[in-house]
Structure formats: C-alpha cells, structure tokens
C-alpha cells in the first residue's frame, strides 16, 4: 500500500490546485503578519481599552501566539474550501481524465486503491494544517516573539502565560487536522459518486455552509438539530484556550469528529468497491 500512497502523493503534488491551497494560506498568514506589524498595537489597545480603567496591562500581548490564535479562528470557513479543491478531485479527477480504467485494471484491490487515496488526502490535509501553523504561529513567533496570549471571550478575558500556551496550540492544530479530516472524508465521498471534481467541491462547501448557518439558528426545532451537525464541533479547539480547560467537551468533540471520518470513509468504501467504472 505504501507504493500506492506514494504514487497518490506524487499525483497530488504535481497538480497546480494543490499549490493554490498552500499559496492562499501563505498569503493569508503573511497579510495578517503585515497587518499586525502596521496596526497591531492599535488592535490590542482597542480590545483592551475598556479594561484599562480597572487593570494595568504589562507585557508583550502582540506576539506570535496571538497571530496563531487569530489565524486559527479563520479555519472553519476558509480552510475547508482549500481542502475540497484537492480531496474533491481525488476520485472524480480520475473519472474525468479517464484514468480510472488504467488504475483499476491493475492488480491492486479497490479497497487498497481507495485507502491509499484517502490516506494521501489525509496527509495533504495534515501538511496544510502544518503549513498554516508555520505561517501563523511559526512566522508570528519569529517576527513578534513570545509573550502572554490574550484571549477575548464574550463574557471574560483569558490571559495565558507564555509557558502555558504551546501545548494548547499543539493540541489545537491536531484537533484542526481532525476536524478538517471530516471535510476531506466528505469531499472524498462526493468525489467517489461523480465524474467531475466541481460537483464534490460545491457539494462539500454547500454542506459546510448550510450546517454552519443551521448551527447558528438557535431556535425552534433547529436547536435539537445542532448536536448532529459536525460543524458544531469544529470550533471546539477554542476550549483549549480556556483556563482551566474542559477536556470532557474536547474529547467528546474528538470522538464525534473521528466517528464522522470513519463513517464517511465507510460509506465511500461500501459504494466504491462494487461500483461499475463506465468512464
């Protein structure tokens, strides 16, 4: 299976669309860094000015941790689109190009082909999150250095000391990988059903957007729907920046998202293993 995974990774990283994803994240990270270099002090002052009457703020609040935290907040909406660009193409792209015929008439089981493609998709997702961490947290720490992380909550303000932050980021990025793996699995499922990559990209984004909207409509029967929307758990990484951290909620979200990944992959496998290849 290692051979097929390496082939699939080679195919992914030979495509321009793969670099669109990395390029967009790189650009986003750099723009936020520049904006913070120019307007960062003003942002911190604006966020803390109401509290300055009661508290005295001492230390470097404009630091790499803050940049990393701000960029992580963009994850739910923007990164899924970049992931579907690649994951939505993984199977449908073979159908469009007519290369299913070459691939599936080789002495490799369909289960192995599917698993290898999915693992390659997960590796791409992991690398994208890792790159996100590098351009936000990594470059942020290089440019702005370390310091306390100030987290603004609607009801309170959380200030985390610099030696208490890194492990939270590590877990948050791993969680981000898990939640984005649900997007990968969903796009992969849609990709297995059609012969054109546009469909899976649009369908996955439609699901994410609809679920996000439904999750925000907190009335009537919709509030009973909320626990069943996977998007509802995708922001649970935020709890890692509470003090103290509610790990039970974090672990519950991890389990639900992992079940989604397994369930979506299971459905894809079930449909794909006996599907007639007519392209």
């Amino acid at each position, binding site marked *: 299976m290692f051979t097929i995974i390496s082939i699939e990774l080679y195919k992914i990283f*030979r495509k321009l669309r793969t670099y669109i994803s990395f390029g967009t994240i790189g650009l986003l990270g750099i723009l936020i860094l520049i904006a913070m270099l120019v307007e960062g002090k003003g942002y911190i002052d604006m966020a803390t000015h109401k509290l300055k009457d009661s508290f005295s703020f001492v230390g470097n609040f404009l630091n790499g941790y803050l940049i990393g935290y701000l960029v992580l907040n963009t994850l739910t909406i923007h990164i899924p689109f970049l992931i579907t660009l690649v994951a939505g193409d993984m199977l449908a792209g073979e159908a469009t190009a007519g290369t299913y015929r*070459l*691939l599936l*008439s080789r*002495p*490799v089981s369909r289960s192995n082909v599917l698993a290898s493609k999915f693992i390659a998709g997960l590796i791409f997702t992991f690398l994208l999150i890792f790159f996100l961490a590098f351009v936000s947290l990594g470059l942020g720490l290089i440019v702005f250095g370390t310091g306390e992380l100030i987290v603004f909550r609607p009801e309170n303000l959380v200030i985390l000391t610099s030696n208490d932050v890194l492990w939270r980021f590590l877990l948050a990025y791993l969680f981000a990988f898990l939640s984005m793996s649900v997007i990968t699995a969903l796009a992969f499922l849609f990709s297995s059903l059609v012969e054109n990559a546009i469909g899976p990209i649009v369908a996955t984004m439609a699901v994410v957007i609809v679920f996000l909207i439904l999750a925000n409509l907190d009335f009537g029967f919709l509030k009973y729907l909320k626990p069943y929307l996977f998007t509802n758990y995708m922001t649970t990484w935020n709890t890692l920046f509470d003090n103290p951290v509610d790990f039970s909620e974090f672990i519950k979200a991890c389990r639900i998202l992992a079940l989604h990944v397994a369930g979506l992959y299971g459905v894809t496998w079930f449909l794909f293993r006996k599907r*007639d290849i007519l392209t």
Partner: protein
Amino acid sequence: MPGVDSEKVIEIKNLSKKFKNILAVDGLDINVFRGDVFGFLGPNGAGKSTTIRMLVSLIFPSNGEIKIFGKSLNENKNFILKRIGAIVEKPDFYKTLTAFKNLEILGRLSGCDTSKKRIMEILDVVGLADRAKSKVKTYSHGMKQRLGIAQALIHDPELIILDEPTTGLDPQGMKDIRDLILHLSSELKKTIFLSSHILHEVQLVANRMIIINKGKKIVEGSVNDLLNAKSLEVEIKVDDAGKSEEILKSCKPELKVNQLNEITLKLSVAENEIPELNKILVDAGRQVFSIVPKNSLEEYFLDLTEKDGNVHNN
C-alpha cells in the same frame, strides 16, 4: 483452429450484464486459447467494451462466470490482472506527466520492473523512446494509442486485451499496430484478445473470432473457416451483361445472378466454380474483362448482424 496447445486462457460462460433496463451483454460464451489472436467483433453498441470491462474487473457481471488462466476472476482478481495487459477504449493517461512517468507509475502498480532500462525498452517497442520525456498532453492520438499498448506490455503479461486499438489512426498507424500485434503473437507468444469494428483488421491478424450483436453471440470460429463456409460474392465485368446473364442462367439455373449495369454482373458462387463460369462465358463468345471477389469479413459481418439472432458455431 484453437491456439498452439489448446489451453483455455479465457473461458466465459453465460455472461450477462444489465444496466437498469438495458441488457448490454446477454448470455455470452467465449473461449480463447493460448496463442490465439482472437478477434472480438460487433457493431457499435454490441456489448464489446462492456465485455472487456468485465474481463478486467472494471464492471461486475450481472450473471455468468469469467475464468482466466483457469481461475475465477471474481476470486482471483489480483493474480489474474497481474498477467493481463489491457487497453480499454481510448487511451487516457495522466496528461501533465511524461510518458516515462506514466509507465513508471503504472508499472509500480503492477508490481513489475520499472527500471529506466525496462521502461525505455517498452517505449522503444512502440516507437516512442525519443518522446519518453515529453508530457502526454503533447502527444497525438496515434502516439497515445502506442503508449496505451506500452502500458499494456510494461509488466510482460501473458494475455493482452486490446479494445479498438486502431481507432482514429491513419493508415500507417493502423499498419504499425497490426505489425505490433503480429510481432506480439508470433515472436513473443502472447495471447491476444482484439476487439474491433474495423473488420478488415481482424481478418488480417486474427486466427479465431467471434461476432456479437446486441450482447449475443452471432458466430464463433476460425476466421478462415467462417469465411470459406460462405460462397463468394463476385462481380464480373463483361462486354454485354444482359446476354451474359442469359448464358449463365441457361447453363447454371441454380445461380442467383444480378445485373448491376450494362457491363457488370453480381453473383454468389463457390470459389472453385469461378474458372468454370469464366469458361462458359468465353466459350459463348463473350469478352470477360475481370472477375473480382467482393466477399470480405465486412460483408460477412453485415450479413450476419442483419440476420441477428441466428447463432452459429464453426
């Protein structure tokens, strides 16, 4: 006339495939023997590509059994596919990759030698060695067809399945593919399953063939036997077609003679009767300019498929 040692390489029994309400393949039985160049003929939509897709596990039969190398395809898919090379319909590749890289990827998937030497050797066989490093998107249709054959050969398979390999090629390209098939069969001792609707191609390279229509077998047997089983259609050019028709009908009342124009007759006759007909006409004072056999696999094929439904075995 089965292949050299009569070992069945492909054994298909009662194979059917239904897509919703359409029965694409209907109870097909085929036997291909080791060493055969087996022609698989039928008009468009006859079920040829569906059958080939079933042979390489791209689609799954609704009914029936496929045995290849004596083993059930359903239970021994990987063992069998390791020993099969196939082109299924038009040759598509990873267009942004070079021919070399495409073959390397496909060879690795087949678990075979993908050294530079091996890949260049195969590209040389199909005449693409000098374009090994070109991206496939720069290839002409003919070059893609040849690369299609290269990918089918990369893992040195015993059975080669070619689905309309000359489609879209110019006459030289068609001849090249034909020569390659003959080389693979006679020099490398490969068994070849050749699907085509260019029937003349099959006539030139195949030793055995089957004709199917609407998913059913129409006829199966050796190419020579099938062609000789039928009397020859000939066109005779003479100085006076009307008088010649009268002469022939009076001497051979059983002959069906049609006058095509003032100087041409068309008739159906056994090959060994042609000299006699010529003698009758010449002895009666008619001038015979030419006797041209019009029989071909094309006409034979059309004749059979028009009669669709009658199953023959030779």
